[in-house]
C-alpha cells in the first residue's frame, strides 16, 4: 500500500512532501513521546502523532519513516513545514483522532 492510496482512502490533507506519495508503506506507529518513537518507529512506516514541533521531522528522518500523519486536525508549525519541504518528507493530516486513524489503517490492511 502506498501513501497515495492512504491519502485517498482516508481523505487526508497533504501539508508537505506531496511529490513523495508513491512510497510504499511497511507499517505504522502511533506515539507522541519522541523518545519512544526514536526507539520504536518503524522504517518505511507511517507515524501518527499530535506533535507538531519541528523535531518530528528529524525523528522521522532518523528512523527513515515514510511520512508523518497529524491527528486531531493538528497543523504543522511553520518551522516544521519548512523543514519537511526541505527534506521532501510527507506530512499528512486528518481531523480524526489517533485511535480512529489507527483503527482505519488497520482495517485497510496495514497491520504492522
Amino acid at each position, binding site marked *: 500500500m502506498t501513501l497515495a492510496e492512504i491519502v485517498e482512502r482516508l481523505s487526508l490533507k497533504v501539508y508537505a512532501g506531496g511529490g513523495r506519495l508513491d512510497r510504499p508503506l511497511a507499517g505504522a506507529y502511533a506515539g507522541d513521546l*519522541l523518545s*519512544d518513537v*526514536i526507539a520504536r518507529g518503524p522504517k518505511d512506516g507511517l507515524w501518527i502523532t499530535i*506533535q507538531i*514541533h*519541528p523535531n518530528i521531522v528529524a*525523528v522521522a528522518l532518523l528512523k527513515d519513516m515514510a511520512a508523518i500523519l497529524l491527528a486531531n486536525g493538528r497543523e504543522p508549525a511553520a518551522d516544521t513545514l519548512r523543514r519537511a519541504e526541505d527534506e521532501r518528507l510527507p506530512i499528512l493530516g486528518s481531523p480524526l483522532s489517533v485511535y480512529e486513524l489507527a483503527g482505519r489503517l488497520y482495517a485497510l490492511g496495514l497491520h504492522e
Partner: protein
Amino acid sequence: MYPRRIVERARQEGLDMIAVTDHNAADNAGAVIRAAAGTGLTVFPGMEISSEEDVHILGIFETMEAIDPVLKVVARNLAGAGAKTDFIRDQVLVDEQDEVTGFHSQFLAGSVLMSVFEIVELIRDRGGLAIASHVDRESFSLISQLGFVPPDLRLDALEASVRILPAALLPTALPLVAFSDAHCAGEIGRRSTGFLLAEPQLSEIRLALAGAEGRRILDA
C-alpha cells in the same frame, strides 16, 4: 506550601538561594520572599511551565514584578478548564505566616497551550532564566517529549536529577545544573548547584551559566 517551613529548611540545608517554582503559577512565591526577609536567604520567584508538548520549562526571575506579566500569559493559556479538581490536592494560596488565604481556581497540573519555543521566548523576553527541567526523566522532559534538544531553543541551561548523563543523550553545549525539584519541604536541598558569584542575584547566575566574567558553576 508553608513559606516559613520552606525558608527554615533551606537555611538548615545551607542554601544561599532558592527559587520557588510552582506548576504554571507563581502566586505563592511572594509569600516565601517575604518570609525570607532578613534571614540571608535569597528567594527568586519562578514557575515550572508545562508546554503543549508536555515539556517542563523552569522560568526563574529576579522579582515578582518581573514574573507578573509571564504569570498572566500562562494563566490565560492554561488548558484544562472544567477539569475535576476534586482529584487533585488543594491548590492553596498562602501568606508569609503560613496561613491559607484562599485556593487557586484554575487547574494548574495541566499544560499551557503554547509551544516550548514560545514559552522559552516568553521567559527570556521578560529577563528570566529558561531552564529545561529534569531532562533525564522519562516523562515531562525535553528529551522524553521531543527526543533531543531543539538546536534553536534559547535555553540557559538543562537541569538533570542525576549527576551524570549519557553523553549521547545530550548532544548540546548547554550547561547542566541540578536542583532538588522539591515537592515537599523535606526534599529541599537534596540536590543543588554551587555557583561562584559576586552577589546572590539572577544576573550573576546568568553570568555563571555562561561562564563569563569569572563567574562559573562550581558543581552540579
